[in-house]
């Protein structure tokens, strides 16, 4: 039975991840087979224009808060140690951490891992995250821009559809 006969796209849906202020852009393939509900929910939110901040707990990753009601059920939440190019969704329920980090009682986030030796974690330790996409091209340029955020502060992040299946 083909993927198309099961209602799944034959080739992966792709998203463009860009930091327009730096000129960096990457392409990521959605992991529809591993987390179809997450991919579809996030796909429906696109395009997204967010503020990205460098993480302070986890190593080489940047993250953005999703606005509004963006809670997604856990799906493909297996990854404690992502690799460069992994893109994940993470939800922090209300009062999971002390206070309201980043001014938010609860938070839904997208994280982008840009280099090795990264482990998503917060004040309570390592966190498994919902891996939903993998960057297939442009990671080197994105890495340079993400590293600069440590010194330069947050940047605008755009996530948009590459094409419709």
């Amino acid at each position: 039975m083909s993927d198309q006969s099961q209602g799944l796209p034959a080739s992966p849906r792709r998203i463009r991840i860009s930091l327009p202020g730096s000129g960096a852009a990457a392409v990521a393939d959605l992991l529809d087979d591993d987390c179809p509900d997450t991919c579809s929910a996030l796909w429906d939110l696109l395009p997204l224009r967010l503020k990205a901040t460098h993480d302070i707990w986890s190593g080489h990753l940047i993250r953005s808060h999703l606005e509004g009601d963006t809670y997604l059920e856990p799906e493909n939440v297996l990854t404690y140690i992502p690799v460069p190019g992994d893109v994940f969704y993470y939800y922090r329920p209300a009062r999971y951490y002390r206070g309201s980090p980043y001014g938010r009682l609860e938070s839904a986030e997208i994280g982008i891992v840009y280099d090795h030796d990264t482990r998503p974690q917060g004040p309570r330790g390592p966190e498994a995250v919902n891996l939903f996409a993998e960057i297939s091209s442009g990671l080197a340029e994105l890495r340079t821009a993400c590293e600069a955020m440590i010194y330069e502060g947050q940047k605008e992040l755009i996530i948009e559809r590459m094409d419709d299946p």
Partner: protein
Amino acid sequence: MTRVRIALGAIEAFAELDEVAAPRTTAWLREQLPIRNQAIHSMESGREVYALLDTQGPIPEENQTIYQCVGDLFVYHKPAIFVEPAWPRHVRTFLVIGFIYARDSAIRGMSGPLATNIVGRITQGMDALAHEAPRMRKEGFGEIAISVL
């Protein structure tokens, strides 16, 4: 007791060196001051701000802990991969001076907690640091200067 001034961005704070608990490290540190360098926010340890020191030491293992508290001023060797974006493979660590500005933070290395030499306590201006560090994290980091009063 030696007092030092910490200037981060637009604010200043003051610390007292702990010359009783860390006599050799604080003596060594006094020789390094004043310092003025790029302030950097931690990417692996939580709410930590640090600066590179222009030396690799050596510093003794003295007054060390893996349970840093808000206001602790410390020095330690930070793994190079968390300092240099393009990790120079021949360099394993950089000697840094840093502080924790909010709770639930702990200095980490590649494989877990990292002991740091506590050299003093920030006694004045902690709230200002706790406000300035997150602001600079969003808007871009400037310099940090530490000097003996």
